[in-house]
C-alpha cells in the first residue's frame, strides 16, 4: 500500500511512523521543497520518502492531510483526483484564525474539504486524538488495550478502505456516518479528544 502524507509536522511524522511500522510504503511532503524536510524524514521516519506535495498526491493511493486546516486551499486538486483523501485536520484558532473565516458555518470542516476536492473521496479520520496519544496507544488488532478511532465519510467504499488502514496503524475503526455528522469530532464537540474504546465511541454514531 502506498500511503502519502501531506504535512511533515507533529501529526504527519507520527502517522508516517505508524504506517512504516505497519509495512506501508510511505511518502511525506511539507509546504516547501523536499530539501526542507529531508533530514526530518531521514531521522524520524527512516524508510519514508520525502517528496513534493504534488508528487505525493500523484504517487500515493491514499493521502492523509496533516496540514493546518486553514491551508487546505493550497492542495493540488488535480493531482488528488480519484484518490482517497484522509482528512486529519482540525480547526485550531491559534493557527487558523476564526473558523468562519475559512469554513462556512453550515459545513463541517471535512465537508468543506470534500467540496474543494470534488473528485476525491474524503474520509475524516485520525483527527480526534493528540499526536502523542496516537503514538502511545497504537496496538495490534486483538489487544485489550486497543483504542478506537472514528471515521466519517460520504463514500462507503472509501470508508471501508480507510477502516483497514486505521486498523493496520493500531486502532479500532468506528464508522460514525456522513462527513456532515463528522462535525461531532471537531474541537469543542463531543467526539474531540476521546481516547476510548470502540463501544464508547459508537455511541456517537447516527
Amino acid at each position, binding site marked *: 500500500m502506498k500511503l502519502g502524507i501531506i504535512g511533515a509536522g507533529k501529526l504527519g511524522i507520527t502517522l508516517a511512523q505508524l504506517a512504516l511500522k505497519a509495512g506501508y510504503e510511505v511518502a511525506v511532503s511539507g509546504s516547501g521543497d523536499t530539501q526542507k524536510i529531508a533530514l*526530518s524524514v531521514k531521522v524520524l521516519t527512516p524508510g519514508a520518502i520525502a517528496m513534493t506535495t504534488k508528487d505525493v498526491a500523484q504517487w500515493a493511493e491514499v493521502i492523509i492531510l496533516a496540514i493546518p486546516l486553514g491551508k487546505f486551499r493550497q492542495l493540488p486538486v488535480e493531482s488528488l483526483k480519484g484518490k482517497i483523501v484522509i482528512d486529519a485536520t482540525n480547526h485550531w484558532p491559534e493557527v487558523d484564525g476564526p473558523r468562519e473565516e475559512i469554513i462556512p458555518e453550515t459545513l463541517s470542516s471535512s465537508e468543506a474539504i470534500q467540496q474543494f476536492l470534488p473528485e476525491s473521496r474524503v474520509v475524516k479520520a485520525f483527527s480526534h486524538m493528540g499526536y502523542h496519544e496516537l503514538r*502511545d496507544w497504537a496496538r495490534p488488532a486483538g489487544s485489550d488495550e486497543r483504542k478506537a478511532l472514528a471515521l466519517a465519510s460520504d463514500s462507503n467504499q472509501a470508508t471501508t478502505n480507510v477502516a483497514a488502514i486505521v486498523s493496520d496503524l493500531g486502532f479500532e475503526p468506528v464508522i460514525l456516518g456522513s462527513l456532515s455528522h463528522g462535525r461531532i469530532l471537531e*474541537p469543542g464537540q463531543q467526539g474531540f479528544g476521546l481516547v476510548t474504546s470502540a463501544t464508547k465511541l459508537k455511541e456517537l454514531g447516527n
Partner: protein
Amino acid sequence: MTKQSKKATSDTYLFGLDSFGDLPTKADGTLMSHPEAIRQVVEEAILADKLGINRIGLGEHHRPDYSISSPETVLAGIATRTKNITLSSAVTVLSSDDPVRVFERFATVDALSNGRAQVILGRGSFTESFPLFGYDLRDYNELFEEKVELFSKLLPEEPVTWEGKTRAALKNADVYPKTEKGLGVAIGVGGSPESVIRAARYNFPLILAIIGGAPDRFAPYVELYRQAAEDLGTTAHPVGMHSPGFIAETDEEARKLAWPAFKTSWDRIGKTRGWPPYTREQFLYEIEHGSLYVGSPETVAKKIAKAMKALDARTFDMVYGGGPVSAEARLKMVELYGTKVIPMVKELLSQ
C-alpha cells in the same frame, strides 16, 4: 559558545524549576492576588537558590490565571536576592516581542545577577500576546523565523546590520548594555521537527518541552538535533527537558494535592481548545507512563532519572505548582526537590 553549553558539559547534570506564576492559595483557602503570587515566586526562587537548585525559569503569559507576563522583571527582583541560581525565561515569546528589547532587558538582568541571565526562546503554546501587542497570528512563522535570526545576530554584541519584514531595519546598530561573558540562550521546542532543526541551525542548545505522553518518544528528536548540527556544522549542545510535576512527602499526598490543581488548570485551557474534561484516568496514566512527575521524592527521582537516561538529557526543569495549590505546599515541594529529589537523581544517573 553560549553560557548554557559551558555549564552543561557531558558529565554535569543541571536541575531547574519552571513557573508561570500560577496563583497559589493562601492559608484561608482563597487565591492569592497577582502581586502576591509574584512575590511568592520570588520567595520560592530564593529558597531554590539556597538549596543549590541550578535554574529558575519563568514563563511569559498574558492570562488571568498566571501572574507573570514579564519574566525578566521578576528575574531582576530575584537577581539581587540570590547568588548562584541561573535566571531564565521559560519561554520568552519572541514572535510578539522585539529582539533588541529582549536582548537589552536580559543583558540588564545579567548585570544585576553577575552573569546569571538566560533567555529561553520559544514559540509558546498560547497566542494571546499576538492581539495584545498588535501582531497577526497569520504571520506566526515568519515572525518567529525573522526574530530568531535577528536575536542570534545580537548575541556576539557587535554592531548589527539587519533587514526584514517584521521590524524596522538596523544599520550598524549597537545595543547596550554589553554583558561580561555573553548572554545565555537556549530554545524550547514542542514536537515540531522544524523547530528542532532551527535550534541546530542557530547553534542554540535545545530544551524539549514534554508535557504529555511517554518521554522516550522524543529520543528521535534528540537524534535529529545532533544530525542537523552535524550537517550544518554547528555544535550539538547538551539537550535539556522540561515537564510538569509535583512532589510531596508521599505518593498519596502528592496525588491528592496535584489532582485538583492539574484538573483545574487543564480544564481551563481545554475549554479554549475544545478538549473534553481532564480525567482521573489520564492523570494516572501520565504519572505511570507519561510526563507527569507527581509523587514522593523517590518516585519522582526515579522517573526523572529514567527519562533523562532515555533522552540523554543533561538538564531537567520541572514545571512546579501548576494550578491552585497552597503556597505552603509549593514551598515544601521546592524544598523536597532541592534536598531529596536532585541528589537522588544524580545518584541514579551516576550508577
